[in-house]
C-alpha cells in the first residue's frame, strides 16, 4: 500500500496528462463531432497504454541520465513538485508542459542531493524542446500542401471525403496516442524506475518486467485522465482556440504523432545507428507545443496569415520559467520531506568522473 502512496504523485501526473494532452490528439476530431468522445477515449486509452508499455523505455532512459532519483520518497516528491508546477501554472494560464516541469524537478533533486547535473543530457533535452515544434511545423507544412494537391487531383466527393477523414482521424489518432504514451510515460513514471520494487511477472505466456508494470500503471492513470476529464478539454480545443477543418486536423495530428514517435522510438534509433545516420535523441517533448508547431505549419502553408507570434513568445518563455519553478519547488519540498517528515529522499552515492567522455556517472554505495 505504501508503494501506491508514493506512486500517487506520478499517477496524478499521469491523470493530468490524460486529461489535458489527449485533447491534442482527439480534440479537433471530437470538438467538430467527426469522432464520438467514447470512440476517441477508448482508442486513446488502449494505444496510450500500449505505447507506454512497449516503447516507453527510450525517453525514460534519457531522463534517468539527467538524474537518477534513488529513493522512492524522493521520487514521490520530484513527481509531486512537477505536478504542482503544472497545476499552478495552468491555473495562472501560463504555458506549461509536464516534460519541462519534470526536468526542472529532477534538476532540483540533483541540486538538493548535491549531485552534478549531466549538462550534456540537459542540453540534449532542452534542444529538443525548441526542435520539436519546429519539426512539427515543417511536417505539417509539407503534409498540408501534399494533402491539398492530392485532394485537388483526386476530386473526392464531399461525403466520401468525410468518411475517409473520420477513419483517418481514428487511425492517426491511435498512432498519436501510442506515440504520446511512448514519449510521455517517462514524465509520469520515469523518476520511479530505479526505485519501484516490482518483480518480473509472467501471466498466460506474457511476461512483463518491473519497468513495464510501472509503465502499465502510469498508462492506466493516463487512461483514467482521458475518461474522466478530457471531454471538456477536447470540446474547448475543437471549437474554441483554433478553428481547423477536419482535414487540417488530420494533418496536425499526423505531424504531431510523427514528431512524438521520432523522439521516442528506440527501433528508429537502432535503424539510424545501423545505417550510420545521425540519431534523434529520445526525449519526452511537450505534445501541446508540438501541436502549436503543427498548427503554425498550416498557417505558414496558407501564406502566414493569422499567425500570433505573441503565442510563440509565450511558449519560449515557458521553456525557461517552467523548469526553474519546478526545480525550486522540488528543492524546497525535498527539504521539507527530509527534515520535517523525516523521510530519506536521497541515498548517498560516490561520483565517478570519466574525463575522457566527460559523462558523470552516479554509482550507488555497496
Amino acid at each position, binding site marked *: 500500500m505504501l508503494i501506491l502512496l508514493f506512486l500517487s504523485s506520478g499517477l496524478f501526473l499521469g491523470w493530468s496528462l490524460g486529461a489535458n494532452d489527449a485533447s491534442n490528439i482527439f480534440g479537433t476530431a471530437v470538438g467538430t*463531432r467527426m469522432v464520438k468522445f467514447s470512440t476517441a477515449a477508448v482508442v486513446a486509452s488502449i494505444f496510450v497504454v500500449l505505447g507506454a508499455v512497449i516503447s516507453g523505455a527510450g525517453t525514460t532512459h534519457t531522463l534517468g541520465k539527467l538524474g537518477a532519483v534513488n529513493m522512492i520518497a524522493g521520487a514521490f516528491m520530484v513527481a509531486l513538485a512537477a505536478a504542482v508546477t503544472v497545476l499552478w501554472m495552468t491555473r495562472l494560464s501560463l504555458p506549461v508542459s509536464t516534460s519541462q516541469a519534470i526536468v526542472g524537478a529532477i534538476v532540483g533533486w540533483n541540486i538538493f542531493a548535491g549531485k552534478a547535473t549531466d549538462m550534456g543530457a540537459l542540453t540534449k533535452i532542452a534542444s529538443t524542446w525548441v526542435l520539436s515544434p519546429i519539426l512539427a511545423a515543417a511536417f505539417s507544412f509539407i503534409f*498540408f500542401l501534399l494533402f491539398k494537391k492530392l485532394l485537388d487531383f483526386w476530386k473526392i*466527393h464531399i*461525403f*466520401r471525403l468525410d*468518411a475517409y477523414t473520420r*477513419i483517418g482521424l481514428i487511425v492517426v489518432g491511435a498512432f498519436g496516442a501510442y506515440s504520446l504514451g511512448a514519449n510521455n510515460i517517462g514524465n509520469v513514471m520515469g523518476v520511479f524506475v530505479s526505485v519501484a520494487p516490482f518483480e518480473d511477472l509472467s501471466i498466460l505466456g506474457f511476461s512483463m518486467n518491473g519497468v513495464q508494470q510501472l509503465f502499465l500503471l502510469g498508462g492506466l492513470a493516463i487512461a483514467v485522465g482521458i475518461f474522466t476529464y478530457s471531454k471538456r478539454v477536447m470540446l474547448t480545443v475543437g471549437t474554441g482556440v483554433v478553428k481547423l477543418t*477536419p482535414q487540417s486536423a488530420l*494533418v496536425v495530428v499526423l505531424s504531431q504523432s510523427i514528431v512524438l514517435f521520432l523522439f521516442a522510438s528506440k527501433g528508429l534509433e537502432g535503424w539510424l545507428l545501423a545505417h550510420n545516420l545521425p540519431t534523434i535523441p529520445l526525449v519526452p517533448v511537450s505534445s501541446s507545443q508540438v501541436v502549436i508547431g503543427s498548427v503554425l505549419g498550416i498557417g505558414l502553408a496558407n501564406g502566414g496569415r493569422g499567425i500570433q507570434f505573441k503565442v510563440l513568445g509565450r511558449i519560449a518563455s515557458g521553456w525557461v520559467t517552467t523548469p526553474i519553478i519546478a526545480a525550486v519547488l522540488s528543492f524546497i519540498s525535498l527539504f521539507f520531506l527530509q527534515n520535517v517528515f523525516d523521510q530519506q529522499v536521497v541515498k548517498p552515492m560516490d561520483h565517478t568522473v570519466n574525463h575522457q567522455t566527460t559523462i558523470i556517472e552516479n554509482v550507488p554505495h555497496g
Partner: protein
Amino acid sequence: MIFKKTKSLESKMDAFLDKISEAGIEYRRGIKNYMKNNHEDFERHLQQVTKLEHEADELRKNIETRLYTQTLVPESRGDILALMETSDDVIGRAKDTLVELSIEKPDVPAEFKSGFIELARSTSRALEEMVLALRAFMRDPINVRNYLHKVYHYEKESDRLAEELKRSIFASEELQLSHKIHLRYFTLHVDMLADLSEDVADRLAIYTIKRSI
C-alpha cells in the same frame, strides 16, 4: 459499411441535382410551347416540372435527415442543407411560374413572344450553370468559380432581356394598361429564376472558401 452509406448518399445528391437540372430544361420548353400555343405540350412540361419538384423535395428531406441522424459532414452540413433548400426554391419558382401561366393564360402578343422565349432560355442557362457549380462544390471545389461567373453572366443577361421586354411592352400603343401590367408580372416571374440562381451562387462562393482545407 460506412462506404456503402456514403455511396448511397452521393447517389441521392447526384439525383437531386439531376432533378433540378431537368426541371430547368422542362421549364424552358414549357415557356417555349406556351408562347407557340402548343398548350398540350405546355401542360405536359408543367406536369413534369411538378413531378421533378416533388421528387427533389423528397430527396432533399431524405438527405437532410441522414446528414443529421448519422452526424455526417458536421463541418459543412449546414452549408449543404442551405444550398439544397435554396436550390429547391429555384425549381419551386419554375413550377409556380408555369402553374400561373396555366391558370391565368396571359395573352402574349406575337411581337413579345420571342422576348419571353429568349428570357426563359437565359434564365434556364443561369440555373444550369448553378447546378454545375453545385456539382463542382461536391467534388471539385477549385472549379466552382468557373461556373459561378457564368451564373452571374446569365443573371445579368436575363435582367437586360427582362428590362428590354418590359420597355417594349409598355411602349406598345395597342395594349391596355391592365394587359401591360399582366405581361410585366410574367416577365418578372420568368426573370426571377435567374435571381434565385444567383442567390445560390452567392452562398456557394462563401461555402467554397470555407470548404478549402
